[in-house]
């Protein structure tokens, strides 16, 4: 049999992007906004979600999809607040994909939800390449991680609608240059909103809550 050359020119992650688009359309048909929250491990994703639930639960019906390599520690914290939470364990995988999200959406009562927070696997690299069907991407960078991370992991920040600088309550103990940080982000991604917050003390969180309300308006 003779050899032939086939021209393909198809993206490897194209199938994932198609599934993500189906997820987004499903959510749109139910008037649900899904916000994908990405960051390194330990930068405060769960704390931010818990505080946001506390503040906005009377305004919106909220659900949470928790992505972790293993354990249900984060989902347990959410369900203790009487908020529906679906735990996805990737079993070692470093990111979520659109198919996993579809299964989680099927397990939620979508007729009773306005807003879904999607807590991605803690990782500043891989999650940025996988569209999940969310409407907005939020990246959290915490003060102890340092202000050089956007140039080390730029793709994550390029994809962000909002960059939250978290843990500003510990700013005096670290060399994070909060005054020049917005220039680093806006250089890479001029349309990103940059908000400085402390999910622990509540400082700056009003800006974040307002952004969510604008997004759902």
């Amino acid at each position, binding site marked *: *049999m*003779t*050899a*032939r*050359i*086939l*021209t*393909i*020119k*198809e*993206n*490897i*992650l*194209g*199938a*994932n992007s198609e599934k993500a688009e189906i997820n987004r359309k499903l959510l749109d048909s139910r008037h649900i906004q899904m916000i994908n929250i990405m960051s390194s491990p330990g930068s405060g994703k769960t704390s931010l979600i818990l505080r946001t639930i506390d503040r906005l639960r009377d305004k919106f019906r909220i659900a949470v999809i928790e992505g972790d390599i293993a354990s249900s520690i984060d989902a347990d914290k959410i369900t203790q607040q009487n908020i529906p939470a679906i735990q996805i364990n*990737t079993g*070692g*995988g*470093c*990111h979520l*994909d659109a198919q996993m999200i579809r299964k989680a959406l099927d397990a939620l009562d979508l007729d009773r939800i306005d807003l879904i927070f999607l807590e991605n696997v803690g990782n500043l*690299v*891989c999650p940025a*390449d996988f569209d999940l069907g969310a409407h907005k991407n939020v990246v959290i960078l915490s003060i102890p991680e340092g202000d050089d991370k956007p*140039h*080390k992991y*730029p*793709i994550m920040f*390029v994809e962000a609608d909002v960059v939250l600088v978290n843990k500003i309550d510990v700013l005096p103990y670290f060399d994070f240059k909060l005054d020049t940080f917005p*220039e*680093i982000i*806006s*250089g*890479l991604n*001029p349309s990103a909103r940059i908000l400085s917050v402390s999910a622990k003390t509540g400082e700056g969180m009003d800006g974040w809550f307002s952004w969510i309300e604008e997004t759902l308006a």
Partner: protein
Amino acid sequence: MHEQSIVSSLLTLALENAEKANARKIVGINLVVGDYTGVLEDAVNFYFGFLSKDTIAAGAKIIYTHVAGQLRCRDCDFLFPLQKHEYHCPKCDGRRVEIVGGRELYIETMEVE
């Protein structure tokens, strides 16, 4: 673990295209990989070896074309390659830089029998 899921998608895409073309065997895959994807050749080859084992892609050689990170200065429009994670324009020293290349991850062509 990143590569495992990427190789799984790569294999699905390759097998679909081979089937459409009534191919009996995939001999080679020309893969274009942007540096920003962080996809490593050794890891791809490793996962491809066992994931393709019982398919018509078994033994196929993957040929890599790497695409360097490509940046554009938002101030003077100068195009330049990414070097050492530096995001300032070598021409005008501008700090506002757009990533315009290096995120590619696609199969360019395949050799089949």
